[in-house]
């Protein structure tokens, strides 16, 4: 009797906690099973060729940075990996790697990939 309001408040908090946590687990479980169902459907399609995966277009650009200081030791620039799009658009131009003459200046090449929607 003494802790009537307290018992009520704590009881409500406990029930609310159980409901929230229970719902999180429920939705997480549903989400997981939905993903599994969708992937299973995709795998059982009769004609795999009919499914054209949606792959984003990749544009590749080359950025050249020339450092003219003599204090930096020479670094051998390694060519960046060539990203070959798997979609129908024409393959990108091959990346031309330019290595600066030793020892100076040092040329570092970086590749920035941007995703075109």
């Amino acid at each position: 009797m003494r802790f009537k309001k307290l018992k009520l408040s704590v009881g409500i908090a406990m029930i609310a906690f159980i409901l929230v946590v229970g719902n999180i687990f429920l939705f997480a479980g549903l989400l997981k099973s939905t993903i599994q169902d969708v992937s299973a459907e995709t795998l059982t399609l009769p004609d795999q060729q009919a499914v054209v995966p949606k792959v984003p277009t990749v544009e590749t650009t080359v950025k050249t940075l020339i450092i003219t200081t003599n204090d930096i030791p020479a670094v051998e620039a390694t060519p960046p990996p060539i990203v070959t799009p798997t979609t129908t658009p024409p393959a990108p131009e091959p990346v031309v790697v330019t290595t600066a003459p030793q020892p100076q200046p040092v040329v570092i090449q970086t590749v920035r990939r941007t995703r075109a929607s």
Partner: protein
Amino acid sequence: MRTPLKITIGWLILLFISLFPIYLWFQFGSGAEDFSNYASTTHSLGEIFGLVGMTMFALTFMLSTRIRWIENIFGGLDKVYITHGILGGTALIMILAHPIFLVLKFIPTQTSLAATYLLPSGYWSINFGIIALVGMVALIFITLYSKIKYHKWKFTHEFLGLMFLLAVFHIFMVRNTISQDNIFNGYYIYAFIVSCIGLFGFSYSLFLKNRLFKNSIYSVKSIEQAHDFFEIIISPDHKPLSYKSGQFIFVRFYNEDVSAEAHPFSIASKSDDDNIRIVVKQLGDYTQKLAHLKVGDKVAVEGPYGKFNYRKYPQQEQIWIAGGIGITPFIGMAEDLAEDKDFTGHVTLFYSVKNKDELIGDDIFHQVAQKTQKFSYVPWVSNNQGRIGVKDIYERSGRFKNKEFFLCGPTPLKESLINAFVKNGVSKKYIHEEIFDFR
């Protein structure tokens, strides 16, 4: 100083300490910037609930120490225990909100991640928190809702100290592993202080107090049974305890048939009497076993505690209201009043019982009423006269203005009367209640 004011001071101190981490969070953390979007807002609230809940959890242990200055700022140990219960329940609510808000940030997009966040994993910092939370929920559920025997209840309640220890591991380890943000600068100092408060309070109550302070040893002098209650008189083996009528003591009987747990009992004898009278109603398993007590059994007495006494208002008219076994503190107070030359006011005692044979100390009250004009006695048998109400009290004691009200008895009776007094214009600062069902 009136009791309600002392309660306010105690509560203000508790609120200040409990909410202080919010100040630290805003002042020494990223503050308002962390409320800029949904994810950061829910995460921030999760942290704040955790910090406040943990601070409250630590303070509950301090409130169970029975340290004298804590009792003084709350106006009596009974009020301290009530506060302990309310604070513990509030701490649990805060701590329950802590993980909920932390995972809410994942809900719109990453429900699976939110679910895994709530489950045990390879991170022991999180696992300690989960175990502490589940344990705290289970133990507080037993505390509030179970009807188990007192000694079993007390045994389970002590495991909250272990849950606090696990929570301490959680708060120290979590910042380095899961929580990537800083929480606030000086977080470890705060965590250390909170941990020290809680662990000191717990270990003091359970281990240190009985080693540091010796209880007074008494012996059972006489034991009488009447109707459904015992009157037990104990006498000191050495130096008697100094106490005021209306206070209560924790008593541990050394008898093989009686549990050795310390139980609180009101003192039913006049102030500083060498012998202490306690009156016990057979309400449960423990009190029924007191029938096995024998004259000469040793008794350890701890106390006295409580601030329930009429002497704080020596000039005022007073109304004392007792229900059932709640009469016990008034027996000693009435005996004191009969010899009190400093008291110039008047007391009317209303004593409500169901049947006439349940009246305890009836002859003492009649004697005091004959001895002094300052005391009137109104026994009330509810089976014959109906439940006592404010109207009955008003008709026999006159207007309520400037009177002090002292109540002790079953909570429903007290609550209904206090509410009725307040409705009739009595300020709560004039109402003083003794709480004895503070389990």
